[in-house]
């Protein structure tokens, strides 16, 4: 049995809403699967089924080789869950939070204390261990929350949007922590709305939208599928934009786009990225056009998402935005 997680045709509806509409997936032991999708795509429902919190309407799912419905207890012995909210007791200290978790895993008192200390060290919280968790920064709370899900030494860990709401520095800190986890052989299923996060962490990615998997593969495969590389040239003088654009179009045999504000010309160059780059440099040099910058960009997962779903991935992530209905509030319906 090489797969830590296997799911076949999972379906779950809440009233008229099909939260999951036939999901198949498998995750090899020790790998990271990124589940990418916008708010309301069904990510949280998927995590809830895999972690035995809710039953699927139909379909079958094995976690660590056990059926999530009929062998829920065995599944729970093997998994850890970090949800979207920090599920810690803010009035209690970091150490107390972890000790209580350890006691609920039925460790004796002394072992519970040691386990708590070990995790506090590992997550760089030793200095704050005797302070109430409500005094922690956002990043520290998330680390404590993650530590709490590791108390039972799970072999499979579920992280539901582990960096939502964190500032960029704390996010990157969290990524490092997550990368180290997998170094220890833990299998990880991670949901995210952030494409760069999936790109950075996941071995394999599934993109889900409206309860269906709309694409799967490694980050490179997904990018390759939606088209080639893009050459960006930033000129020093605005007058050169048209000339550069014509030159690049001829070279790439494709239509270029001009951004006047940024002084950038973009053109798709298919799969001959670096050759095209060298050619462009020679040509611009011959034309004696001074350039501020030239770069080759592989398509981002944002581009992947846009081309797959026809809408941007972060749509609705901002509650103040025009798509309030798909916004943050939605997450409670997602359950």
């Amino acid at each position, binding site marked *: 049995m090489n797969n830590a997680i296997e799911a076949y045709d999972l379906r779950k509806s809440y009233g008229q809403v099909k939260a999951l509409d036939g999901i198949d997936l498998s995750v090899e032991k020790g790998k990271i699967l990124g589940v990418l999708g916008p708010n309301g795509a069904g990510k949280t429902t998927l995590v809830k089924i895999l972690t*035995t919190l*809710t039953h699927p309407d139909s379909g079958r799912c094995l976690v660590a080789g056990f059926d999530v419905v009929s062998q*829920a207890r065995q599944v729970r012995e093997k998994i*850890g869950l970090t949800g979207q909210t*920090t599920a810690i007791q803010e009035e209690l200290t970091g150490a107390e939070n972890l000790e*209580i978790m350890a006691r*609920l895993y039925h460790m004796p008192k002394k072992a519970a204390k040691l386990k708590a200390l070990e995790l506090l060290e590992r997550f760089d919280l030793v200095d704050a261990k005797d302070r109430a968790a409500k005094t922690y920064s956002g990043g520290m709370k998330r680390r404590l929350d993650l530590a709490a899900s590791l108390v039972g030494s799970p072999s499979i860990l579920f992280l539901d949007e582990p960096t939502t709401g964190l500032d960029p520095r704390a996010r990157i800190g969290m990524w490092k922590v997550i990368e180290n986890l997998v170094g220890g052989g833990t299998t990880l299923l991670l949901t995210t709305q952030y494409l760069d996060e999936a790109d950075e962490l996941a071995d394999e990615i599934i993109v889900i939208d409206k309860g269906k998997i709309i694409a799967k593969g490694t980050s490179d495969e997904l990018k390759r599928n939606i088209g080639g590389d893009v050459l960006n040239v930033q000129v020093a003088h605005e007058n050169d934009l048209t000339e550069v654009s014509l030159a690049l179009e001829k070279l790439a045999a494709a239509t270029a786009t001009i951004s006047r504000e940024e002084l950038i010309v973009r053109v798709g160059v298919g799969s001959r990225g670096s050759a095209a780059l060298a050619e462009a440099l020679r040509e611009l040099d011959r034309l004696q056009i001074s350039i501020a910058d030239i770069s080759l960009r592989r398509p981002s997962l944002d581009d992947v998402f846009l081309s797959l779903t026809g809408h941007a991935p972060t749509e609705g992530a901002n509650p103040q935005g025009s798509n309030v209905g798909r916004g943050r509030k939605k997450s409670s319906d997602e359950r």
Partner: protein
Amino acid sequence: MNASPISETISDAVVIAKRDLLVWLRVPSFIFFSIIQPVMFVLLFRYVFGGAINVPNAGGYVDFLMPGIIAQSAAFASFGTAIGLAKEIQLGVVDRFRSMPMARSAVINGRLLADTLRIAITTLVILFVGILVGFRFHDSLLEAISMIVLAIVFGVVITIVSAYCGIALKNEESVQSFGLVWLFPLTFVSSAFVPVQSMPGWMQVFANNQPVTIVVNAMRNLALGQPSGHDVLLSAIWLIAIAAVFTPLAVRSFSKIS
């Protein structure tokens, strides 16, 4: 399916209860609501309103008041339960517990256990303050203990109702305002603070037949050494009935959280 062994059901509930009590001790406002506030109520009614309220019993208003205020405090202590549960569901604490190999019932059982202890402590503190300001039991120790036990059982039953509200509403603010909507009329439109005879006739109909009055009357009769058998029996029937309705409701909505 996946039932936990009894020893685990108990030990997990004890861990949760210890945790809930620890949180209670750490939060000054919780202590305020469960201890300082009832003590202020005792002093307020004893010295400010008490002089204006005529009561028929021996011992005067303070002896009338204490059973009522103990019952009211026990009922109000249940706010903490509802708010606590709603908050934990909101924060995903309950989800995490449910994904762990522990007894799922521990979240509710542990909290009820902690709350029983909390209500007992509150009751004893209020009683102590009451005695300082002149309250006396008129009958034997057995009746005094019976009154205290009835107060605690009443508090626990109301806590079950509150727990159901907390689980069903899942939101701190709505729990708080909804709690006021049902707890205030029940405790104040009762015999807890004033004789029901002083209310308008239509209100007496409600006040005389609702469970808080019945429990308070039973407690008061026990404290004052008046015949109490009938009221105690009626209280027991009410409390068992309320628990029988709300326990399954609470359990059902708890199992449907996700």
